[in-house]
């Protein structure tokens, strides 16, 4: 096979996996609606109350502006981190056997699943944007910014869903995964800049937050989602951190995923 058609084949297989997942969502969009509720509740309930606390948002901007990108990243995280359950479910049903017996490179299968998580997370973005706009958040709707936000959300969701897949390969049963999934979301969410600035944290927690990819996703989203948004670390840095970690996760999962059926 020539190099070019090998690359073409790789992407055909990767997109086949992602396309199948998106088709499933189209057949049963109920999941998307039910998942839209949580970020709305965070913005309306948590956001409206915390907006009264002075000094929570850095600088002079309103707290809701600060919070909206954090809630978007969080809601995408919550969906992605439980992806491992469906991977175990696919193993138990036998669907995974079909994927693994196919000639598709394992990395194409893993990357295809990661891409589908990214697409899934974009539905959360639509909800958060609409809700935030209704609540008076100063959004930027410049096409370049929207594009960058799409990329950030997709990268974040792909990264965390692949992390979840790695956990699934280790724990192997749904029961064990349920417990661990809950335990994982809390520190990833709270040890980040999603709902309060890192400057408020004690020193040790600040270092944890700086090693947390969610921090960079939120920072990037604050930059591109808000009118006049400013990055703490630089948008390029945020994107690079997410992309590098994502590739690392896919590389690890590629080694572990095929052993799930043994």
């Amino acid at each position, binding site marked *: 096979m020539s190099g070019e058609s090998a690359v073409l*084949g790789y992407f*055909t*297989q990767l*997109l*086949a*996996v992602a*396309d*199948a997942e998106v*088709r*499933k969502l189209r*057949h*049963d969009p109920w999941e998307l609606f039910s998942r839209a509720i949580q970020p709305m509740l965070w913005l309306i309930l948590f956001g409206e109350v915390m907006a009264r606390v002075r000094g929570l948002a850095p600088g002079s901007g309103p707290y809701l502006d600060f919070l909206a990108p954090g809630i978007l990243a969080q809601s995408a995280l919550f969906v992605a981190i439980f992806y491992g359950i469906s991977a175990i479910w696919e193993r*138990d*049903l*036998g*669907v995974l*056997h*079909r*994927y*693994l*017996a*196919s*000639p*598709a*490179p394992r990395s194409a299968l893993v990357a295809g699943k990661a891409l589908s998580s990214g697409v899934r997370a974009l539905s959360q973005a639509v909800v958060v944007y609409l809700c935030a706009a209704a609540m008076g958040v100063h959004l930027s709707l410049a096409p370049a910014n929207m594009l960058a936000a799409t990329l950030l959300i997709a990268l974040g969701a792909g990264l965390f869903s692949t992390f979840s897949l790695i956990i699934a390969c280790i724990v192997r049963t749904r029961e064990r995964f349920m417990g661990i999934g809950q335990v994982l979301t809390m520190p990833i969410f709270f040890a980040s800049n999603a709902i309060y600035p890192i400057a408020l944290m004690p020193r040790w927690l600040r270092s944890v937050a700086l090693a947390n990819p969610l921090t960079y996703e939120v920072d990037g989203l604050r930059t591109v989602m808000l009118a006049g948004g400013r990055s703490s670390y630089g948008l390029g840095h945020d994107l690079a951190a997410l992309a590098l970690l994502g590739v690392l996760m896919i590389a690890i999962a590629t080694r572990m995923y*095929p*052993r799930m*059926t*043994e």
Partner: protein
Amino acid sequence: MNDEPVVETFELTRRFGDLTAVDAVSLRVQRAEIFGLIGPNGAGKSTLIKMLTTMLPPTSGRATVAGFDLATQPAKIRRRIGYVPQLLSADGELTGYENLLLSARLYLVPRAERERRIADALALMGLGDDRDRLVRHYSGGMIRRLEIAQSTLHRPAIVLMDEPTEGLDPVGRHAVWDHIRDLRGRLGAAVIVTTHYMDEADVLCDRIALIDRGRIRAMDTPAALKSEVGLNATLDDVFAKLTGGGDERGEYRDVRQTRRAAREHA
């Protein structure tokens, strides 16, 4: 070359801790042959199939599948085989058509031929009217037929099926038999099929290997095996004689132990 084997194993062995699930199995399967792996639950049939489909690495021994070495060329093997796993592997949340489209893309069936092959497969399997229904509304027999179609869209040289008739009613079982014969006739494919139904093996298979506790106890045509035991013998008689066993074999408890050992040592 018609007598070139498409599958050949040499002392293929898989251990899970202390348990030897497949014990030094050597066999050859020819082109266009329907080859049965017969034995009770827990005999090691599925473990052998998983090794031949590159899903599970052997502990020792070696094998070639479709002319490629199992240890060093697993990706090439996966291009040339079709696999119908024991579990129902079609995705219930997709339609029949979408399941086939996914397989066609994973197996890199040329884009220009995709739609035609999918339509042909649906027609052949009698699923044309159900192509746009979600597979979770299919019957067990329909799902099996869909899976056979999914695993043969890429025209494999070898199709491996693990208990393809398990859980089907007699009509569904006979339909699966017909499709297995058709694969051999139409594609010239070798079909390796596991079953614990002796009657099924008798009518369907050109040759069978009787497996018990990981070892091949006998390997020949059904007629030859039966004639060794006596006039009017059935394969059940052959099996009982070879394993010296009454009905104690392959009890649920044994199967559970085997599968647990397999899981824990994976």
